[in-house]
């Protein structure tokens, strides 16, 4: 199977003064192209730390990370920025939209940093198309404050999709949403996964949310485990 992500024995240790705080203690995993994976674990177990490494925002203390067959460990900061721009889409718990900026401009924003520059018109056309795809074709000129939480997160998803990345990383995308709008957003992810074959990795606390994924990976205290403590068998990990 074509692996889009391949990590081996990833360690991440933070230094707080003289004290070394190991957060990731040797994680190895694969994610196949087109998979939809949920990452679960208790708070502080290192999920976000792992996502930051997968998202090329951070570098592991040791270990090998291959994205799309390319070794990420020895890229420069600027090269990693380029990878983030072309190959990754981020969806955050707190949406992170630019305030007082239209949905259209928010979605088009990553294009500013794309090497082969599109014309202004083309950029706007593409942003409008993306917003239409997430069901916000009518709200191009709305500012974040004029949109509901679910709509804001959909704008954020459109922004993540603008450069047509093969991989989307979502850290607790439904953490700030109620269950109904959560369903909306998850349905959107599922559509993207099933119809466009986009690989999605999603961090969540919620087993209901994790159920939308093909596969669940459990992290406990910086290590991948088969099941979380106090968890029943039917939610156990199914390795492909």
């Amino acid at each position, binding site marked *: 199977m074509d692996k889009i992500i391949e990590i081996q024995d990833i360690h991440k240790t933070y230094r707080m003064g003289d004290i070394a705080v190991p957060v990731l203690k040797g994680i190895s995993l694969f994610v196949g192209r087109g998979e939809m994976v949920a990452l679960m674990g208790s708070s502080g177990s290192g999920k976000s730390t792992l996502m930051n490494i997968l998202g090329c*925002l951070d570098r592991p203390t040791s270990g090998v990370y291959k994205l799309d067959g390319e070794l990420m460990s020895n890229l420069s*900061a600027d090269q990693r*920025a380029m990878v983030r721009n072309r190959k990754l889409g*981020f969806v955050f718990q707190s949406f*992170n939209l*630019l305030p007082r900026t239209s949905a259209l401009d928010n979605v088009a*924003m*990553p294009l*500013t*940093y794309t090497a082969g520059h599109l014309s202004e018109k083309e950029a706007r056309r593409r942003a409008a198309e993306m917003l239409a795809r997430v069901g916000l074709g009518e709200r191009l000129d709305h500012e974040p404050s004029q949109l509901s939480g679910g709509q804001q997160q959909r704008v954020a998803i459109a922004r993540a999709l603008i450069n047509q990345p093969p991989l989307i990383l979502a850290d607790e995308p439904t953490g700030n949403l109620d269950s109904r709008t959560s369903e909306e957003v998850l349905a959107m992810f599922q559509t993207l996964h099933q119809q466009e074959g986009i690989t999605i990795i999603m961090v969540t606390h919620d087993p209901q949310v994790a159920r939308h994924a093909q596969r669940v990976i459990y992290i406990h205290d910086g290590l991948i485990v088969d099941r979380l403590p106090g968890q029943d068998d039917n939610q156990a990990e199914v390795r492909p």
Partner: protein
Amino acid sequence: MRYAQKSWRTFRTALKALLRNPMRAMLTTLGIVIGVAAVIAMMEIGAGSSASIQKTIAKMGANVLDVRPGAAASGGVTFGSGSTTTLTPEDADAIMRECSAVRAVAPLVHTRAQVVYGNRNWVPTFIYGSTPSYLDVQNWTIGSGVSLTNRDVANGNKVCLLGETLVRELFQGENPLGKEIRIKNISFRVVGVLGRKGANMMGMDQDDVIIAPWTTIKYRVTGATLSDANQSASSSSSSSVNTLSNLYPSDQPSLYPERSDVQAADNPMPVRFTNIDHILVSARSAGQIPAAIDQITKVLRERHRIRPGEADDFSIRDMAQMTEALTSTTTQMTNLLLAVAMISLVVGGVGIMNIMLVSVTERTREIGLRMAVGARAKDILQQFLVEAVVLCLVGGSLGIGLGHGGSLLVRMLLRWPVETSPAAIAAAVIVSASVGMIFGFYPAWKASRLDPIEALRYE
């Protein structure tokens, strides 16, 4: 093409970011607005006064040299020591005769006295006694009537030319030509009115003047005295001996009986040359001024029998020097004010830096997000730098408008000369962009050094 598109996009992004908080942007750039406005206004007013000084100088005749007796410069009236004489009309003739770099020469005596016409009186700033060539030297023209003649000078005729101010004060609309005015009870017939000249560099009204033959002023008005500096001296000396009073009869009664021609021939008295107050010399051109000074010095030293090594008993003042001094004073004032204006620009720059730092802190999450979606450190640096520069340029443009408006207002209300200076506008644009660059750099650099993970997590 692609580069232009990228620049345009960067500019647009910066403008949009600024417009997210327009009130703050305006207040931030206020310092630049004021600084640039001050610079523009200073430059325009400074350029205006320089230009008007140049104009005044041109009107005055920049080629004019002023030869004065050496002692006169110190204020007192002395005859000099030994055989030395001060300036005489003969000196003036000699200069005209012997100096090739000289175009025209006019001896000059001056006095102050009350002028009466009918029941009106006036004390003009200047009563000059000279020759017809005075007008030539001063580049002055007759407005109406005729000029003085050499015969008037030789005969000590009681004729005069009036400046416009005097005509206005004494005649109040009447035609002055042919009328008689009285100076110290001596009647003068007005033969001509001078053209308008306006104020001189010192701000004195040059039209407040009477010009008469120097012989008339010297012997009829001030008597035989050299002194014009104070009136008491002139009245007390009215009884003093004047050997030339035969030649140029004075109204004052002579103390001594007149000597007959035989007596004079038998017993010649040393002739006391008549002294005059100035000799005005016009050089052939501005470039001839140094040559003219050399020639005049040579002629006068010879005539005054000054031995090599001895100091001159006269001084030559070059108008160019004075105008240079005046111009440099204005330039210095302008530069001083410009420096103050520059300081306010720097203060404005510090304001920009302050607000940009606040803005960077406020927009930490935005910076993190931009980095997450692919902005490199230099993209962030560029974005904030462009924001600061755009802010300063907007402030600069407003400042140019304000400063220009201010200087126009000064021209209208205070009637100061003002001159639009494209160089100042170009300088203002460059300076405000540089202020943006310099003071925007630190905040932008700080923004570019943020860690994306921490920036995204920033509350």
